[in-house]
């Protein structure tokens, strides 16, 4: 009984330890440049298509709901402002999260998990190579960079999709949409969203690496680790979203 009670606490503790180790290993030489490039390309490759697929329905849904509301109070001209508010502050970062956690973090966890049960990480340690420095650091940095860049992609595609949907289906004036974009959203909001998505990418990669390194027990173990990666990274991301939104709103005032 005490063992089951201790287990989650232990897990949180060792996750914290891994995060600190990773942070400390970032400035240490030799830096794994080649792995960083490979991982960045990999994360971008697996994330780009799902992002574009996911951003379309999310945008259509939010813009649809926002426009219904604005049309009802006779303010359809502010459709662009509503869309920009919804997409830049929430949809952009959240879609980025879902893709980075669902596509990239799962693949990272599966890869590291398979290496762990094949004892490749132990082999690295025997050869005097620190697996955190060689494998975890480049992955975390790669996910952070790609999440940052994806957020920009998502926002642009979201705003363009919102424009097409509002103008063609809900008969909003194109000029009014474009003109209203910057009414509620300024530099502060964009900066908050950028920081948010970078944080999302970093925490998803840290969770994936932790779960991948701590894996045990064959195929079922790897499957469970990936499952837990998805669950825990979504939970962490929603938590970060609450805090970052609160801070962002206060900063933007």
């Amino acid at each position, binding site marked *: 009984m005490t063992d089951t009670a201790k287990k989650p606490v232990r897990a949180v503790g060792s996750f914290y330890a891994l995060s600190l180790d990773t942070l400390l290993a970032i400035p240490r030489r030799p830096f794994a440049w080649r792995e960083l490039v490979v991982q960045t390309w990999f994360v971008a490759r697996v994330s780009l298509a799902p992002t574009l697929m996911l951003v379309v329905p999310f945008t259509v849904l939010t813009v*649809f709901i926002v426009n219904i509301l604005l*049309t009802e109070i006779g303010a359809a001209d502010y459709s662009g402002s509503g869309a920009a508010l919804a997409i830049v502050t929430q949809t952009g970062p959240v879609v980025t999260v879902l893709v980075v956690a669902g596509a990239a973090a799962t693949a990272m*966890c599966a890869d590291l998990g398979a290496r762990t049960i094949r004892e490749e990480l132990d082999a690295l340690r025997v050869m005097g190579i620190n697996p955190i420095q060689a494998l975890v650091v480049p992955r975390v940095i790669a996910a952070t960079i790609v999440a940052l860049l994806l957020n920009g992609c998502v926002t642009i595609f979201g705003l363009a999709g919102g424009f097409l949907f509002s103008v063609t289906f809900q008969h909003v004036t194109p000029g009014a949409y474009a003109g209203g974009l910057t009414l509620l959203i300024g530099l502060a909001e964009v900066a908050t969203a950028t920081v948010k998505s970078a944080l999302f990418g970093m925490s998803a990669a840290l969770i994936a690496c932790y779960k991948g390194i701590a894996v045990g027990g064959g195929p*079922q173990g790897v499957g469970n680790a990936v499952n837990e990666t998805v669950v825990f990274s979504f939970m962490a991301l929603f938590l970060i979203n609450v805090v970052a939104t609160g801070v962002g709103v206060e900063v933007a005032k």
Partner: protein
Amino acid sequence: MMATLKGRRAMAAAPSTQFYRIKQAGDKLVDGFNQLGRQANFYASTLRSLGDAFVRYKGETIRLLAQMGLGSGALALIGGATVVIGFLTFAGGTVIAIQGYSTLSGIGVEALSGFVSAFVNVRIVAPLVAAIGLAATIGAGATAQLGAMRINEEIDALEVMGIRSVAYLTSTRLVAGVIVVVPLFCVAVIMAVVGTRLSVTMTYGQSTGAYDHYFKTFLNPLDLIWSFLQVLFMAIVIMLIHTYYGFTATGGPVGVGEAVGRATRTSLIMASFVTVAVSLAVYGQNGNFHLSG
């Protein structure tokens, strides 16, 4: 001459000399198309065996139901799908409160926060976040289990023993997933609404009377039923996709992990498409919504 050509075509790995890249691209296209057919076939046989899940494998269905609601392994320690989905929707509701209250107070109508909760939480946050939670917990869990069974050749063993593997493994999971989504959706809606109310009334200090008045005025019970049906649809789609990727996992432990990732990605995309399709179909162009009554 013909014989050698045919021989070359049969060996997929050997590069042909003429138009190699075009042929490769064509093969990829055909393969993707066949993949779609195989998926459709699998879904049809899963749906066809639904009766068996109720009649023959009742025990297995009930066992899965318990496992999905409260989780297995490390997820059981934190309370399984119920707690995860409750947490996610609570956080979603809180974000709606923060963003909505600050935007509304910018134009001086923060009293309408209750209205935003009744409108946005019910129509977007609860169904979408519940679907995300479903895919992450129950769906990904099913892929991991089935994938591990496939890699360990347990599914082949079932077939050898004369048990219909599709009915026993995937139809039961589909039934259990759809049943378990009913209480989970209730948890999702309540947590989203409570999350918004707590932040608006306790953090921002709006009076509960004003909040509740606008919340109750604009809460449309019909919207709740539609969003419930949306989640039900999404649960079917998510369970089908996740069981397919688990059932067809290949390539050892890493294959199981990759299958989980691919399934999560696909089901998130499909679930959001379902939400959009149902929303547009249900609410129509004017949104079935009247602010002035």
